[in-house]
């Protein structure tokens, strides 16, 4: 956590189990997300993949009654260690949500700079940061002449890329994406997928998706989550995307990726 140079990091989840109240929803998940790789988390609804994603940057603990076992290591440091502040964790591990959620009372420019302001940090060159962030999210050309417009004046796809840019302005080492395209049209989806590919050059990406084609298009490795009725969810199969989709080991994975259920 002390290393502040912007570079990708390896994130690993060790033996993660999750409870809501007394109900266990995830059991013993072990996954490694190597630097500069895109990992897709797939699985039917309710299998705990979004919940798992939230444990990776401590958004999980905001839910009343949430419980956790195991540890999440960012470059070997346990992000749940008592001396680690959740604010530092969330600065280093950014998150993009399912629905675009730009701050409605702020302009495009203010949205980009909001992360710095909210986490109490300063930058020497705000204009430059705005431009780089928007460029990295491939939306600069569309908004460069209207940086002071309200964020809500953008289209849905543009709003989502703005939210990505907002996370990028924090210079995170890892970016978590929770079904970032599920509310968008195919054109916007394709552009965001291109953005993800470019981002993987400078950071580690974990993306939850329901879309098999999307998982195959953007990810290097894939984890398949599954929860049987009334039992906690877990990882059934984890490997390179090519292997999981073409030569799955577990028959349930085979059924799912070929659309037989879910």
């Amino acid at each position: 956590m002390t290393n502040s140079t912007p570079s990708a990091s390896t994130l690993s989840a060790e033996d993660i189990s999750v409870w809501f109240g007394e109900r266990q929803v995830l059991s013993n998940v072990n996954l490694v997300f190597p630097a500069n790789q895109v990992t897709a988390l797939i699985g039917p609804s309710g299998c705990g993949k979004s919940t798992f994603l939230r444990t990776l940057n401590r958004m999980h603990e905001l839910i009343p009654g949430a419980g956790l076992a195991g540890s999440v290591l960012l470059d070997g440091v346990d992000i749940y260690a008592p001396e680690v502040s959740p604010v530092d964790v969330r600065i280093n591990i950014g998150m993009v949500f399912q629905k675009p959620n730009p701050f409605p009372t702020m302009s495009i420019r203010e949205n980009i700079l909001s992360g710095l302001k909210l986490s109490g940090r300063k930058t020497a060159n705000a204009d430059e940061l705005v431009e780089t962030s928007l460029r990295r999210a491939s939306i600069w050309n569309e908004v460069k002449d209207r940086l002071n417009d309200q964020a809500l004046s953008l289209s849905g796809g543009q709003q989502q890329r703005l939210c990505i840019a907002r996370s990028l302005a924090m210079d995170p080492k890892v970016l978590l994406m929770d079904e970032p395209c599920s509310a968008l049209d195919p054109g916007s989806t394709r552009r965001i997928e291109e953005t993800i590919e470019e981002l993987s050059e400078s950071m580690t990406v974990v993306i939850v998706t329901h879309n098999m084609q999307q998982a195959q298009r953007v990810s290097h490795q894939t984890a398949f989550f599954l929860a049987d009725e009334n039992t906690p969810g877990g990882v059934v199969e984890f490997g390179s995307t090519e292997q999981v989709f073409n030569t799955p080991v577990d028959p349930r994975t085979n059924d799912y990726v070929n659309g037989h259920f879910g």
Partner: protein
Amino acid sequence: MSQTLSRPKVQPWSQSSVASVRPLILASVLPAVFAALVGLLANLDFSVALLVIFVPLQALAAGFVGFKTYGKRGLKDAVLIFVTIFFSMMVMVLLTSVLVSVAVAGFSAMSPQFLSQNNVYVSPTTSLEYGGVGHAILGTLLIVILTTIAAVPLGIAMAVFLTQSNAKHKGIVRTVTQALSGLPSVVSGLFILAIMGFVGIERSGLTGALALFPLMLPTVARVAEESLRLVPSDLRLAALALGAPNYKAFFQVILPAAKSGIITALLLGLARIIGETAPLILTINANNSTNLNPFAEGIATLPTYIYGFLSSGYSTSQARAWGAALVLLLLVALLFGAARIMTRQKSLKTKSTKKAK
């Protein structure tokens, strides 16, 4: 346009035809005519004719038409519609009567001098050309502003607790706050009086403002809570995911998004207390002259002004009471109108957010 008019409507699925429209017209005219005739011939009182002859007849007629058109089902539906309209009309009549009486009687007392002068040297029989409610308007504003200074921040803080924190006893706080919003105003006044007795403070504008405080607080808290609840929880999560502490997420993201709702809470809180009378009678001394010092002597307010003049019974004092009532109602309407505009802006904004999804 003309084409649609000239072409007869043929809708086989609808049963409306000339044959079924005729009883409808008859049913809506006959009872009134009959009631008027009987009323005139028997020299009945207007209200008796209305209630005893017209209303039952109209209900019967409506039921008959319903029965003719839809059978037994139509009978019940027609009577239901009739009863609904009858009782709602009663509400409308009562409300209109209040508003029109205040407007008409109040307007005849109105003049620039009535709005600006105070009440020194005015007795209950002094003609309306002298004196006015200027001092009471200022006094009312002064006192409600004092109450607002205390109640609004506290009410908003309560609303923040009810929406932002994870505390377990939120439910009971909400219930107690709601129960407090039904606090009888006279009890609020007695409460402050009891405190004054123990601490030994004299009656002044400040004690009046204190007596309004328990009445304003729950209103502000409730409306502010509703408006904070309307802010999508996604925004809060987004702010926290960017590394914001809760208080920054609130002040920089949630509060700006709920701004108009918070202002609505302020306005409705003001509307709630601006006409309160009993607590002020208990805790403030009357005053005929203008006093803007809330720490000493009596202060006139619009509600206590109305109360005072109404109690004396002369027609000129009643006219003054109506005039003050009109001013008070206009203030309430102003607050309400402003609150409406605020909520409309808010709903426009949420609409555009929805569209963006």
